[in-house]
């Protein structure tokens, strides 16, 4: 692995910019995600910044089950993100459909529609669990890069 690739991988791990998207959550998971981004937990320590547009984001943070209505929008937002990109599913609903599983208007978890790199269960997932999950994602990236 050349020096440039190493430096780029380091930069990717140190600067994950996120985009938050509600795919049909009951809103509790969104509140927890917003709480994670407040000065109390200060995610900027890890270089995390909340971005408004998919073009700038590296990590798509989804909450809630995928409803039939939001499915096309979710895929579109995912396609608007530049490579390399990751998806994090926050909350039990986003992992598997949760309490909304088998509803007539719900398609189950996020990975029924787009590939997901990390599942963070919890109803709702607490800010600490979300931070732990993000750190684990970054670590696993580091390890998989080291193996190459």
């Amino acid at each position, binding site marked *: 692995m050349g020096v440039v690739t190493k430096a*780029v991988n380091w*930069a990717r791990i140190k*600067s994950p910019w996120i985009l938050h998207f509600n795919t049909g959550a009951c809103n509790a998971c969104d509140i927890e995600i917003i709480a994670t981004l407040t000065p109390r937990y200060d995610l900027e*320590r890890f*270089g995390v910044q909340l971005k*408004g*547009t998919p073009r*700038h984001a590296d990590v798509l943070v989804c909450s809630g089950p995928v409803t039939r209505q939001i499915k096309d929008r979710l895929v579109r937002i995912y396609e*608007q993100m*530049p490579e390399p990109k990751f998806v994090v599913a926050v909350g039990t609903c986003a992992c598997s459909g949760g309490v909304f599983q088998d509803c007539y208007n719900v398609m189950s978890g996020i990975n029924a529609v787009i590939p997901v790199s990390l599942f963070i269960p919890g109803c709702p997932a607490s800010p600490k669990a979300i931070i732990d999950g993000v750190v684990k994602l970054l670590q696993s990236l580091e390890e998989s890069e080291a193996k190459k």
Partner: protein
Amino acid sequence: MFKDLFQILIFPGLTFLVIFSLFAEYFDRKLYARLQNRVGPPWFQPFADILKLLAKEELIPCEANPRMFKLAPLFAFTAAITAFLYIPLWQIKTLFSFNGDVLVVLYLLTIPTLSFFIGGWYSTSLFARIGSVRSMTQLFAYEVPLFMGILSSALLANTWNLKEIALFYSAHPWFWLFNLPGFCIALIALLGKLEKVPFDIPEAETEIVAGSFTEYSGKLFAFLKLTLDIEMVVGAALLAAVFFPFGLQMNPFAGFVLFLLKIIFIVFLLSLLRTVMARLRIDQMIDFCWKYLVPLAFVQILLNLAVKGVILK
């Protein structure tokens, strides 16, 4: 020839400027975080951001005009760097100097805003277009007080050449104190130019996503981000050269340290202002600039004319 290239590309041109402006961004963000009682990003954060963006895929919307879309960030970047070469840094002489260069620097600093407008307009996204129009509207509000503030200092020195301004103020050591109101005006107008809170209306994240930058990704966005950082350093250097023109005859090393301190001080003021204020609406911003900043700038010009007529005669 070789020396010129070294000065343009390495020191104090491109390389030095990019590294220093990334450092200034770190300083700004860290201070912002500390003032909000947070820990803030580590020192390498801006470098990591830029490196990551440079290595990302760049997407060009299929409705955008690819040539304009790609050229706009490069124009902005080049103009911001070029402006730096005309500013006296730690000695009286500048790299390239001619009569009227203070105006050229001011106009070179306007080119990034125009490029943002063109880039946003040609990306054909709705958010980008609203952001572009807002940045143009804002341009007409802050540009006049900025010019008046900076040129009032030049008026006192009776020259439009940055080198001679520096010469004048080293011949009349305490005269820069007369320009302090002008400095406040120019500092506030600079906030508008850098699109920082309270004047971040063109890229208001909660309303219009990211303004003119909405459709930019990868390398092109990295250049836009670098341009904003460099504009901050160049703007601060211009204010330092025009309003704090002291300590320019010291030995190069001490002068260089003083120059860095002056820039860091101005960046400090910018971050402080952006922490304690919230975003204005576009009409409030324009009202504020035309009703308060411009009259204040007139008072500054009258004051300088009086000083020129009474004390210097």
